[in-house]
Every structure is written in C-alpha cells, then in structure tokens.
C-alpha cells in the first residue's frame, strides 16, 4: 500500500497552482539557459559563425550543473516545512498519535518532495533530448546523472526534514536548511581550497604540484554534491579537472568520487531520517521508553 502521507501530499501539492507554476518556471529557466548557451556556443565564435556541434559539451555541462543548482534550491524549500508546517497547523499531534510509525511519516514527507524532483527531472528530458539529437551523450549517461540528482535530493531532503523536525518555525527551518545547503556546497569547496592552500604552502612551499597534493583527500568534499557530479561529468567527457585538483591528482577519470559521495549521502540521509523520526515520536524521546520498560518488568 502506498504511504498515506505520500498519497495525501501528492494529492494536495498537485492540486494547488504552486506546482504547475514552479514546474513552468523550472522548465522556463532550463529552456532559457539552453537557448542562451546554445546561441553563445554555436553561433558567436569569432572565427566561425555557423553551427559547431563540438560546443555541445559546454552546453551539456552548463545545463547539468544548472539543473543541480535548481534542485539544491528547490529541495530545502519543499522539505523545510514538512514537519514544522504540520506543527504550525496543529496537525502533527493528530498524525503522530495514529498507528502510523514516525518513520513512515518522515519517509512519506521526504518521498513527496522527491516525487516532485522526479517530476522536474522528467519534464527536463525534452530539453536535454535536444542535445542527444546531435550525439555525444548516451541515454545511460543521463540515467546516471538522474540517479545522482535523486540521491542528492534525498540527502538534502533528509537534511530539510531533520531540521524541520527539530525546529518549530518554518521560517527558521527554511533559513537553516539553506545555510546548511550553502555550507555543504560552497562552504566545503572554499574550506577545502583554503585548507589545502594553507597546508601545502606550509609543508611544501608555495610551488607545490597537483600530484604532490593528491595525497591529502579532503573528506568534507564527499559531502559536496558537486564532487559526485563533477566525477560523472568528467568521466563522461573523458577529462580530469575538478577530480584531479581536489581528489586524486592527474589520473584517468573514474566514478570513484561519485560512488563515495553517493554512499556518504545515503548513509547520512538514513541517520538523519532516523533521528527525525525519534524527534517526532513522543514515546521514544530521550530513551524514556526503555527505562520505563525495565521498571514495569521489575514490578
């Protein structure tokens, strides 16, 4: 049976004007960017003013990163109110007091958000398909990217739900979710660059090569979804820029960072979801249940 919370959320979300409006905006932004990039890359060369199929890679690259940015902007907004919104509406008690487990409630909320992201990905297929017309990228490449988008949405959605369970007001939860999103994307990157620059300058002097620095894997970058994304993109394009600079030096491109990034995201997501379910479960808070159980058994 479909999760009741997911069923209800899908019904109510799809009914409002907001979903088609956001969907249209999402498609509009993607299509607009596609047109701008296409014009810039295909027709505005100084040396050649015609169509250049080789420029497709740039368009593909920009669109995929842009789509990731859009997902990272949408997911916190849709999940940050998931539990705090129920609390503000005074419907949370009615929900947690039912036979539905707290974990099912949390999962239902997250799945509703993921379903929305999947819908966004599906509607982006026609735009990305134009790139496939000219060749260079396989359908499998797109599926791998979509899987990573969903894993990223799952991770950032779990953060949103977790924050929503722990803080009371939706305004607070939204702000914190975006701060965490920024920290895990821009923050980890800036932190890594600063740490690396400082550390290497101190140990080896300022003229350190990339290969020397490759032994210092910045673990926090595995929390950054752009690590996994760059790993996929560079692997698809046969280049090694981001991966080489940040992770493994100038080796041949691999999907290893994508695998680690995905595994870290999935493991952390389940931990966050479990903690969120504990938080909303009135009978499991602070381990009281176990203490009481022992007491009753004794008596």
């Amino acid at each position, binding site marked *: 049976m479909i999760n009741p*919370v997911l*069923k*209800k959320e899908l019904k109510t979300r799809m009914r409002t004007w907001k979903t088609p409006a956001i969907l249209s905006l999402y498609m509009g932004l993607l299509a607009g960017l596609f047109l701008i990039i296409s014009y810039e890359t295909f027709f505005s060369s100084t040396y050649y003013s015609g169509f250049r199929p080789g420029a497709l890679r740039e368009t593909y690259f920009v669109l995929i990163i842009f789509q990731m940015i859009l997902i990272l902007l949408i997911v916190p907004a849709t999940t940050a109110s998931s539990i705090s919104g129920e609390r503000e*509406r005074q*419907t949370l008690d*009615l929900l*947690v*007091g*039912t036979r539905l487990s707290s974990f099912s409630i949390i999962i239902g909320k997250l799945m509703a958000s993921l379903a929305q992201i999947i819908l966004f990905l599906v509607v982006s297929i026609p735009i990305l398909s134009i790139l496939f017309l000219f060749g260079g990228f396989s359908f499998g490449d797109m599926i791998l990217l979509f899987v990573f988008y969903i894993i990223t949405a799952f991770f950032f959605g779990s953060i949103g739900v977790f924050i929503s369970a722990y803080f009371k007001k939706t305004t607070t939860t939204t702000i914190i979710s975006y701060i965490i999103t920024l920290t895990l994307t821009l923050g980890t990157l800036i932190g890594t660059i600063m740490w690396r620059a400082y550390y290497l300058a101190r140990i080896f002097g300022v003229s350190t090569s990339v290969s020397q620095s490759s032994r210092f894997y910045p673990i926090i970058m595995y929390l950054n979804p752009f690590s996994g994304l760059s790993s996929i993109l560079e692997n698809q394009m046969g280049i090694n820029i981001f991966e080489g600079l940040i992770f493994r030096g100038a080796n041949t491109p691999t999907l290893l960072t994508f695998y680690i990034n995905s595994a870290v995201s999935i493991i952390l997501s389940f931990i966050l979801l479990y903690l969120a379910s504990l938080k909303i479960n009135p009978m499991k808070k602070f381990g*009281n249940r176990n203490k009481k159980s022992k007491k009753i058994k004794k008596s």
Partner: protein
Amino acid sequence: MLRLENVTKKYGKFIAVNNLSLEIEEGEIFGFVGPNGAGKTTTLKMIATLLQPTSGNIFIDNIEVSQNVKKVRGIMGYMPDFFGVYDDLKVSEYLDFYGDVAGLSKEEKLQVIPDLLELVDLKNKKSEYVDSLSRGMKQRLCLARSLIHNPRLLILDEPASGMDPRARVQMKEILKELRRMGKTILISSHILPELSELCTNIGIIERGQIIESGSVDEIMRKVNKTNNIRLTVLDFTEKAMKLLKEEPVVGNVYNDDKSIEFNFEGGDKEIVYLIKKLVNNDVPVLSFKPIESNLEEIFMKVTKGDEE
C-alpha cells in the same frame, strides 16, 4: 478499560500532574473537570500516547501504553482541545486519509466514512473543502476522525469548546449516541451542566491532582454536608424565620420576600419536626424543599479557583 497508577508529569521543577490515579470501567462516560492549568490536557495527552509520564503507569485494556503504543492507539481515539485540519482536503478526503493512516482497506473506508459523516451530520458537506467548514463542523469532523478505526475508548479534550449553543447541542447529541454505542469516553470540559447530564462519573482535578471523583450524586453528597432548604410561606415570614432560628439543626437563615432559605444539618425526622412546628404555630407553609446543587456549584466549592 483505563487505569492510571500514580502518574506524574514534571516540566523541570513544575509539576503538571501529581501522582494521579484513576480507573474508568468499560462503557463509562467519565467527565474530567478542573480549572485552566489544572493538568487536564496533560493527563489526556499522556493517555493518548502523546506525552510520556515522568513516573507512573497508564494501562488501556490492561496494556501499559508505553509497552505497545501501536496496539493502544488502535483501541483509543483522541480528539485534542486545539487542533488543525488540512484545509486543502475535502471532507471525505480528510477521513479517507486518516482511514489510510489507520490501516483500513478501501472496502472498509467505503463502509465507515459515510456512516461517520452521517453520525456527525456532515454527509451533505462531504465534497466541500475542510477550509469552508464552520468551527463546530470542524470539531465534528475531528470527532469523526477520532472514530475512524472504531476505537473502544475515546479521549475527548474540550470537544465543545468555542462552539455556539446550537453546535454544542449537536455535539452533545453525538456524544449521547456514542454512549448508546457502548464507547468508553473520557471527556474534559468546562461546560459543567452538560457533563453532569452526560457523564456516569466525574473527576475534579486541581493542581495536577484528583481532589474528588465518583458519580455526580456521590460528589454532591460529599460536598453538601449541609443541605440548603427553601421554605415558601403565604404570610408570617418573620415569624417563620424566628421559629427556624430556634432550632439547633438550622444554620444561617436568609429571607427573600416570601421565600426563606436556610442551611440544615438534620435528617428526615428533623424535617418532619420542622414542618410540624411551623404549621402548629399557624405559619401558612406553601412549600418546603431542598435546593439541589448543580455541578458548577460543586466545582466552585471543591476547587480553590486559582489559576496556575
């Protein structure tokens, strides 16, 4: 059906519920009465598995609630004092959602939802958005929600609060119907006369403790150690008052035109003696009857009335 054993709930140093014990038999309608902040809602939330007691045990159908929360939630339905509804759902969809949550099959929902809408008189509103309902209708819808899984025990926290008189009467009728259906109901309310009409037993709670409990009659007898009696005479009011004051079983005597009210500490024999004495002294007695206290008066007498 429901048993609370020395239940205490503390918030830091503040004791919301203090060593409270209570037992409610199957089919009983128990009224929970108390001033604001007395601990009613906290107690009901603990029974409804929405709060954990700091100490003590709560048993529903002989199951300790923290031992098998899921099973207990299947036996019990809870309606809070303040609650929200999903405004973006229609009335039937709202119940359908809670039917799903309760694990009902499609067939069960098709059978139960129309019956519940009929019970709470919202059948003609089933296709309307919850948002469009009046407060009274939302209260009734919430009651229907709490009944969706056919619970044997109902926990109702101020179910008629904020309702207009008509809506209150409707709610009372629904509760009477539920009583006829054999549900065990624990109901808290400030509308005391309604409770006295509806409940088989009541408990008066103040500062987190039950200070009186039993049937309405029992509590009246406990509280009214002295009866108040109203005597109506055709004439000779002053003479009647003088004769009454002579008797040791008569306390304070008040005069209200031809009606005299006085405190009386005697039994039936003393009543007969008093009437005989008045008649023998040519006082034209029209009526002589005890004044019955209602639940509100008892509540005022028993509780100290200071809000926390």
